[in-house]
């Protein structure tokens, strides 16, 4: 098992270096001169030239990339062109908010998805099945930014107009009440996928012989479903959750913008608007790192769940 984990970890390194190269290259060829942005428009050409020299912007692309990688190895992502603070500090200050949002969304998605998926599979062709499948279809087709606006409209604006207070605040961060709407908005599409996968995976498992055997030997239906069927049905669910995590991270950018959530997704958009490229570069790298780590985690989890992988690396 150790060999499997080490192999996956080693495989991650060239991927992440490749990601830094691609992101650096994209940002390098972006319009806007960082020196001009840093100093402001009304600076003399000599002054800008001097700062360009200091910042190393006149070096060839490969040298600049080498310097960037060198800095990255020491945990340095450059400085924000707006505040002048290190990008790592700026990201560090906002990362907990993004993690909280992603965590809340995953919780919403897994709870709703599993419950609806199990209901749909165990009561196939019933009203629960129809309802769950309807939810899965609509949830996957609904743009999350629209869902966000509709929830604000309903629970903040409309509620406030009728009852004198908003049920959930439309912006801000800190309490559980602030988290409810953003987490639902970000988690809904994901919940739709999980519902679908849980349903089809459960249906497949429920048809297996060992399920018939456990029923035949008089096991209660509850135990059959939750003990034998669900555990075996979970493998594809975990894979999908891991794969969809990237979509979730992308969605967090939009969700954070709508709810003025102080995470790195909103910082990314603000960074793009102000052409603050060290911030844009840094946040995208952190997102890619988070995604890669989650994928790795899923792979490792897989190794523990699936005996075939365990057996392969046992020696």
């Amino acid at each position: 098992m150790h060999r499997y984990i080490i192999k996956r970890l080693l495989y991650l390194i060239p991927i992440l270096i490749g990601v830094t190269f691609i992101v650096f290259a994209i940002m390098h060829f972006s319009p806007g001169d960082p020196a001009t942005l840093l100093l402001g428009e009304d600076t003399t050409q000599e002054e800008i030239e001097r700062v360009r020299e200091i910042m190393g912007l006149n070096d060839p692309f490969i040298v600049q990339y080498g310097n960037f990688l060198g800095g990255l190895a020491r945990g340095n992502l450059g400085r924000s062109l707006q505040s002048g603070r290190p990008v790592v500090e700026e990201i560090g200050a906002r990362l907990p908010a993004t993690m909280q949002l992603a965590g809340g969304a995953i919780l919403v998605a897994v709870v709703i998805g599993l419950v609806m998926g199990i209901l749909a599979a165990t009561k196939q062709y019933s009203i629960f099945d129809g309802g769950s499948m309807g939810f899965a279809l609509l949830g996957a087709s609904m743009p999350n930014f629209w869902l966000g606006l509709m929830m604000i409209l309903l629970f903040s604006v409309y509620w406030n107009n009728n009852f004198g207070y908003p049920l959930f605040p439309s912006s801000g961060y800190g309490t559980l009440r602030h988290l409810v709407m953003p987490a639902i908005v970000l988690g809904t599409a994901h919940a739709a996928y999980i519902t679908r996968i849980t349903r089809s995976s459960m249906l497949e498992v429920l048809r297996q012989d060992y399920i018939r055997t456990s029923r035949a030997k008089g096991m209660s239906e509850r135990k059959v479903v939750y003990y034998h069927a669900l555990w075996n049905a979970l493998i594809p669910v975990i894979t999908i959750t891991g794969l969809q995590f990237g979509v979730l991270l992308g969605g967090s950018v939009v969700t954070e913008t709508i709810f003025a959530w102080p995470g790195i997704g909103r910082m990314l958009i603000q960074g793009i608007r102000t052409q603050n490229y060290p911030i844009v570069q840094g946040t995208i790298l952190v997102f890619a790192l988070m995604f890669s780590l989650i994928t790795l985690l899923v792979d490792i989890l897989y190794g523990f769940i699936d005996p075939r992988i365990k057996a392969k690396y046992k020696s």
Partner: protein
Amino acid sequence: MDSKEKNIRGGLKRGNAAVEEVRVKPEKKTRGKWAEVWRRLKKNKVAVAGLFLLVFLAIVAVFAPLVAPEGIDDQNYGRILEPPSGENLLGTDNLGRDVFSRIIYGSRISLTIGFITTSIGVVIGGILGSIAGYYGGRIDNLIMRFIDIILAIPGLLLAIALVSALGPSLTNLMIAVGIASVPQFARLVRASVLSTKENEFIEAAQCLGASDLHIIVKHIWPNSFAPVLVQATLRMGAAIVVASGLSFLGLGSEPPTPEWGALLSDGRRFLRDAWWMATFPGVAIMITVLAFNLVGDGLRDALDPRLKD
């Protein structure tokens, strides 16, 4: 006779057998497959509903100037932010424009975005995947590692980075979202090529001296068509959501273009005073994406009935 020669001879023999088989009923076989798919698709009521919806949306988009009651940018300061009424079915916006008309014109943009971005993904991804799968070895390794790297960056974020580098515009938006969908198709086509490559008819074609390009285009691609078609249909819906999300964030079309995401972004500014401005463009996006998803799912079930539960 060395083993390679044996293989070739064996391949030829099997190839001849295959030719023999095809010669018996050449056309009926290919027509039969798609007729069967169509027959199964027709039985799936939900998929048929999706198909009707798509055709309807396409007609609306093509004939937008005839369908829409007003023009794309007809401002009227006498009726600013008016709620839905008999006059303006879905209300008016902050410049007194008819929301209904703008959404109808917006369907042209969104459907075009879906089609072009997916085409970019299919073409580039298809070529990369075919090369990787057909030649294998080092080229395969190089291409697939590159794809792995791209896949490590979440799609929407890659598109955001590309748009911010290229500058926000509708064209750049389509390029960015298109490039972000390349890895998906590259992997799909590669897998499909890998499984098709092992067939005898490919060996036969090689023995007959067909060029690699000829084999890929004439023999391998037709066999990859089904999974790509399913993925492309589903991807069109996803691309419309991603693109409208970028527009919503201000990284896409410029005003007064009635792109649905941009309409939503306008609606957000007037959320407290004019709920209709944000509500209806979102409904339009949802219906369109739903239609693509229904057709895509239906096609998948029709092409591979085993997958259906």
